[in-house]
């Protein structure tokens, strides 16, 4: 246990003894001395339960001393006439030591279990990563190898349309795979802190327009509505990273909702922060802890319908946190999901006004 933790423990031992003394004073007129001893025992048990052995011993000693001096006649002295109070002391000390010892063991076991859980979580992520690589990369590789070898071997005997379709599938698979590899690398960089956050003043509507442009094909089947006030303040962010975070939320919404439904991007200024939301009108979110959605390789309910790397939301969270913001999911009443994140609003520097015409 750390030294600072120890001092807190000793402080608590003194405080608990003091509290027991006050409680003892309050009950003495009507109760036996034995009950006062019980109050002190309770103090010892609480200290032993919360803290280590040292504070427990201190609480025992202080309790017996206080009990003896303040309550056992003759008051104000240490003279112990009655041997039975020596027994009280021995029992308090024994209880203190016993409970602090027990708690020590419980705490140690809890720490071991936590370490084991971390190890198994690491193992889960490692195997999920391997599964992700083997499935999400090997399938497109098989398509690319097959389609391109078919083109090389018998392209001349195919119709132009067939050749074109094969070539297109090679391109599309390669593009998806490249996105996938980029996601895995990005996640690794975000986790190891290898990304140096270069911030600059950015306008959220520009970031939104840019990401919608980039994802035009992937969002083509959905109706995207914008709800962005015209007077949003500038934010000091890494625009490329925020664009990526927002893009991941949009791709996620498109992947989990039916074609033709609405995906809405909105932003609101709330106090000193900007709340950016991506809302959809799809099947909604799975039961249970919504925070889990942001874990790595945590596929949503409709995994089979969607594909995706299982990293999109995790990357989004890492980027928002890197900016000191918060990201969360909400169930929308009547079905649908909302993913929201915050960005701090800092006072923007002045733009000198232009002299009028």
């Amino acid at each position: 246990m750390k030294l600072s933790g120890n001092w807190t423990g000793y402080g608590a031992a003194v405080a608990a003894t003091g509290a027991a003394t006050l409680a003892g004073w309050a009950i003495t007129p009507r109760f036996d001395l034995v009950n006062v001893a019980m109050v002190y025992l309770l103090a010892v048990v609480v200290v032993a339960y919360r803290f280590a052995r040292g504070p427990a011993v201190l609480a025992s000693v202080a309790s017996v001393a206080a009990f003896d001096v303040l309550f056992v006649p003759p008051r104000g002295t240490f003279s112990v006439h009655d041997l039975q109070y020596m027994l009280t002391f021995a029992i308090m000390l024994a209880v203190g030591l016993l409970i602090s010892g027990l708690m020590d063991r419980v705490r140690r076991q809890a720490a071991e279990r936590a370490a084991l859980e971390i190890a198994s979580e690491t193992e889960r992520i490692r195997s999920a990563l391997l599964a992700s690589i083997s499935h999400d990369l090997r399938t497109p590789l098989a398509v690319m190898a097959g389609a391109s070898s078919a083109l090389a071997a018998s392209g001349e005997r195919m119709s132009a349309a067939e050749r074109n379709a094969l070539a297109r599938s090679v391109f599309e698979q390669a593009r998806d795979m490249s996105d996938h590899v980029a996601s895995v690398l990005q996640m690794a960089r975000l986790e190891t802190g290898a990304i140096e956050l270069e911030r600059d003043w950015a306008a959220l509507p520009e970031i939104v327009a840019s990401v919608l442009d980039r994802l035009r094909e992937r969002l083509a089947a959905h109706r995207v509505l914008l709800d962005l006030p015209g007077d949003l303040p500038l934010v000091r962010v890494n625009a490329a990273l925020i664009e990526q975070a927002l893009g991941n939320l949009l791709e996620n919404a498109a992947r989990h909702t039916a074609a033709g439904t609405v995906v809405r991007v909105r932003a609101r200024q709330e106090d000193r922060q900007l709340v950016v939301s991506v809302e959809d009108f799809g099947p909604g979110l799975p039961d249970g802890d919504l925070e889990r959605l942001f874990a790595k390789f945590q596929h949503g309910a409709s995994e089979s319908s969607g594909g995706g790397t299982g990293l999109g939301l995790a990357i989004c969270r890492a980027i928002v946190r890197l900016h000191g913001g918060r990201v969360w999911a909400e169930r929308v009443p009547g079905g649908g999901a909302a993913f929201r994140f915050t960005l701090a609003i800092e006072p923007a520097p002045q733009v000198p006004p232009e002299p009028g015409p």
Partner: protein
Amino acid sequence: MSGLRPNVLVVEDDPDIRRFLRATLTADGYRVVESASGRRAAIDAGTHKPDVAIVDLGLPDLDGVELIRRIRQWSPMPIIVLSARTQETSKIEALDAGADDYVTKPFAVGELLARLRVALRHARRGPGGHCLLRLSTASVDLEQRRVTRAGRAVHLTPIEFRLLACMAKHLGMVVTHRQLLTEVWGPTHERDTHYLRVYMKQLRDKLEEDPMQPRHLITETGVGYRLVAEEEGDFVGEDGN
């Protein structure tokens, strides 16, 4: 401009990428000169006098940015940079060093060919060639400094006009934050990106049909802006595809 078929210098160390670039460019009517290294490219650029250069930023021997600086010392030929996603910083350095546009790997060749066409049109136009631009229902006469939208005169402030003119000078190509800030506000303001955010919004409010989803004043996130507009008059029919 030498002959009808433009001459492209391809600077790329990877032979497979060179191969597909050669195949596409030749099929699209270009003559291709290939350099597998930066030093070789610096020489080839001098001897072959290409009309346009495509430069990969990840060259083994010479930094792509350095190559661009060397070429820029003596030639205004358009330069298009090929960059990987992990080369964001050097991409911006390359653009600030004089490259005209970029394509991020992996790319579809259609995108590269489109950038090439814009770059060659720009080179053909020469400095201050075009003067009439159309942005959907808005038209801009850069010489007369007159802007109309749906037939009505639109007033641009001097800074708004300078900003628009600076982008128009690189019509269709990316202009970095630093380039815009130094040209419009001066070198002491090269880091005042918030000026750009504010004035670009004003320009969009005046010129775009839907300022929230602009089709002409395009944001290149983290890099700069791109003006996409049709030219009126001058070059009709010169660029067939």
